[in-house]
């Protein structure tokens, strides 16, 4: 590898490198506590809602830097309705889940309608939604807390409570064998997919990345998967919520990368007029982005009440900011058209690691916010400056 290739590699993987550095820093400051199996497991459970929301937010941001401010309130509202249904009205759990999903999606579609077809600026529509659904959550809950502790099936399914891990089918004692095995299968599938696609490309004489980078990438990602699985298996195994997160990440990663619909999101953000004149219904793309955001907000709402085993009118506050922050830290462009699901997940993990690390170090909660703000600003400054070829100041 020559110097240019190294620079290119660093540029492409900046956030991963930053993540490693930050992880190393906290491992040092906390005496390795952040790498304890329990904390790794907590990192997933605590931030599951961020992963889900950030994935949805990415689609909105892709359409042109548009954000959805209402997600925190929608999370709260969906949770409030769900808890009320399950506890106060004794509606069966499966029906409650369906209703929650439908409500979230309907809210998304409602906001999407004004944004896409009437062309009201998303900032305004979702600001209105943020206010309205926060108020409605209060109305639904009467300002009270509804505990869903007794609904163990629901709580366990969405990753809350003490027993929110996938059962170990092999009955390992210290090590959760199912988890370890799952990690190995995942790494195996990943390697297999990468190798077959490379072989196919070589056969057809297409461009492929240098062999060395390819191998390094394969080894690094497989190693991360295996270490991760090993850590989890040392704790209690796979948190159920991880399954949800993985499904969301894989499905949306696939959609954005491989489908025509996914392509449309990037195209609209890149040049809406050109996209329209290419025969693509851009209104539908906006509509889809916000409807989908509502759908994922509903999922995040279920994850939230399950983890906290209750619904309260204050839940979900600032969730939208976590999601938006993760997107921008993860390399999404504030002007739209650029950003990937894996990138956003790295951004969300970075935020999560900083949170967890500072909590373990006993940093004051208010200072944590300051640090997060600085990280967000620094990440975007870095992104903009590196795109300008390393010049800090914009040309006057």
């Amino acid at each position, binding site marked *: 590898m020559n110097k240019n290739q190294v620079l290119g590699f660093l540029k492409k993987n900046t956030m991963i490198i930053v993540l490693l550095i930050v992880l190393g820093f906290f491992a040092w400051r906390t005496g390795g506590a952040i790498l304890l199996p329990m904390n790794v497991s907590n990192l997933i459970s605590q931030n599951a809602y961020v992963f889900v929301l950030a994935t949805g937010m990415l689609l909105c941001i892709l359409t042109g830097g548009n954000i959805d401010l209402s997600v925190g309130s929608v999370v709260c509202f969906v949770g409030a309705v769900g808890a009320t249904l399950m506890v106060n009205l004794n509606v069966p759990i499966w029906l409650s889940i369906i209703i929650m999903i439908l409500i979230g999606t309907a809210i998304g579609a409602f906001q999407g309608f004004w944004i896409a077809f009437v062309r009201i600026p998303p900032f305004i529509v979702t600001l209105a939604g943020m206010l309205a659904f926060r108020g409605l959550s209060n109305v639904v809950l009467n300002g009270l807390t509804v505990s869903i502790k007794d609904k163990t099936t629901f709580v366990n399914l969405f990753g809350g409570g003490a027993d929110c891990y996938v059962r170990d089918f092999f009955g390992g004692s210290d090590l959760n064998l199912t988890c370890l095995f799952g990690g190995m299968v995942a790494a195996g599938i990943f390697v297999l997919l990468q190798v077959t696609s490379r072989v196919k490309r070589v056969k*057809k004489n297409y*461009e492929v990345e240098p062999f060395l980078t390819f191998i390094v990438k394969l080894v690094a990602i497989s190693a991360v998967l295996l270490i991760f699985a090993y850590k989890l298996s040392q704790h209690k195994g796979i948190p159920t919520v991880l399954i949800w997160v993985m499904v969301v990440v894989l499905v949306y990663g696939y959609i954005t990368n*491989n489908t*025509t619909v996914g392509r449309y999101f990037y195209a609209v953000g890149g040049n809406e*007029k*050109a996209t329209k004149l290419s*025969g693509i219904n851009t209104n539908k793309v906006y509509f889809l982005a916000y409807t989908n955001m509502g759908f994922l907000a509903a999922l995040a709402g279920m994850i939230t009440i399950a983890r906290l085993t209750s619904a309260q009118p204050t839940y979900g506050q600032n969730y939208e900011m976590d999601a938006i922050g993760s997107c921008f830290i993860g390399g999404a462009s504030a002007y739209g058209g650029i950003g990937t699901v894996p990138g956003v997940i790295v951004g969300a993990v970075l935020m999560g690691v900083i949170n967890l690390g500072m909590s373990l170090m006993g940093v004051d909660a208010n200072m944590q916010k300051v640090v997060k703000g600085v990280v967000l600003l620094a990440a975007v400054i870095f992104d903009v400056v590196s795109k300008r070829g390393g010049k800090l100041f914009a040309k006057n």
Partner: protein
Amino acid sequence: MAKILLEMKNITKTFPGVKALDNVNLQVEEGEIHALVGENGAGKSTLMNVLSGIYPFGSYEGDIVYDSEVCKFNDIKDSEGKGIVIIHQELALIPYMTIAENMFLGNERGSKFRINWNETSGLARKYLDIVGLNESTETLIKDIGVGKQQLVEIAKALSKNARLLILDEPTSSLNETDSRALLDLMLKLKKEQGLTSIIISHKLNEVSYVADKITVIRDGATIETLTKGVDDFSESRIIKGMVGRELSDRFPKREPHIGEVMMEVKNWNVYHPLYSERKIVNNVNINVRKGEVLGISGLMGAGRTELAMSIFGKSYGENISGQLFIKGKEVHLNNVQQAIKHKLAYVTEDRKGNGLILSNPIKINTTLANLDEVSNKSVIDKDKEYSVAVDYKEKLKTKCPTVEQNVGNLSGGNQQKVLLAKWMFADPDILILDEPTRGIDVGAKYEIYCIINQLVSEGKSVIMISSELPEILGMCDRIYVMNEGRMVGELDGKEATQEKIMTYILQSSGKGEE
């Protein structure tokens, strides 16, 4: 011999990996109009950026001698202080400010805390009179046309006491009349004010009309300087210098094989989307045949783009009425999807704004209008997409390292090829090409013409909208002349001349509604 106002000596400018300018020499005498010509990417703009201080002293080699002293400009302010003012191709005016405000933007009259509006408008009036613009100084920029905006830019330059005016492609978005007026203004300023100017242009007829000297730049080096009255100033002579070879024929030959009527438009009317009483297209009847290159000639603002876009799935206008027949059957195209399905394609004149996604690679742009072709149940086959893009890259001779390259990094001519590739991949029968060669150099133009010939030889129909008369005359089998929203003439390609087309336009101008 007059005094040398500007001399650029052995200018060399390197960017990482490329030598943009290689020992360029340029001499401009006081009071002359000096034209700079060359293909896209030859280095004209780089040279002017060096001169105006956008690339500061130290970032290039060589000397700029201006008014007999060596200058070291660090930014535009320095060069403007010496009276060197550059007017860029994309006008830098603010639409919602008045003419006077725009003219003195960054150069406000009065003190820092209190702008002297009387002085502002008084001075603005004075300079507007010099350039012959008869508009109130309080008119908003958005309310005047591009031609007048160009005059405001010149007035603004004069208000900065310009001694050397640099105009980068000043007429690229002007119609013939406005272009001529602008060139005449340059001649007038030269005569009355003794103003020295450098003009960069692709329009060679304008260059030979207005310039005293022409310097040809090719591949970052000065090739030659031609002087009026001494050297041959003809277009073919200039082209020879630009491309380094004789272009015996600017338009490739083809054997026309014209078949039955492919598309017919009857009694087509279109109204303005905002001012619904304004008729933009007025009762137009046209048809195009299989294997035919049909030209639509006319001035800027004649309604040609609007006509094309209204046909293309009602992409422009309100209250569209009339009938559209494709292959003899009446069709109703209410959106772009339907238009594409009926094998119609519209290649926009505004490739950056309406045509391409500049931040995306060539391959993604190539397939955007026909993603179904490279996907299976809405899952994109990326290998197929890649090979399609490579295919078109080779077919159209697009110059790029790989199809993974972002379109924004390509030159104008190559961007145009990507745009053409995109619509050729949509597999249309009828292609409407709107100003397909705007802002691209002679060599690339020739290649675009070859592509057009290839398309019609495959039995497709091409409708070419162009403001350049030689191109229309050289390429088209049949020509419609459009003016003020109406079709005012139809000519056979062989009989058509510039004079005939202009006569149709002039005779119909101002007649308005029937």
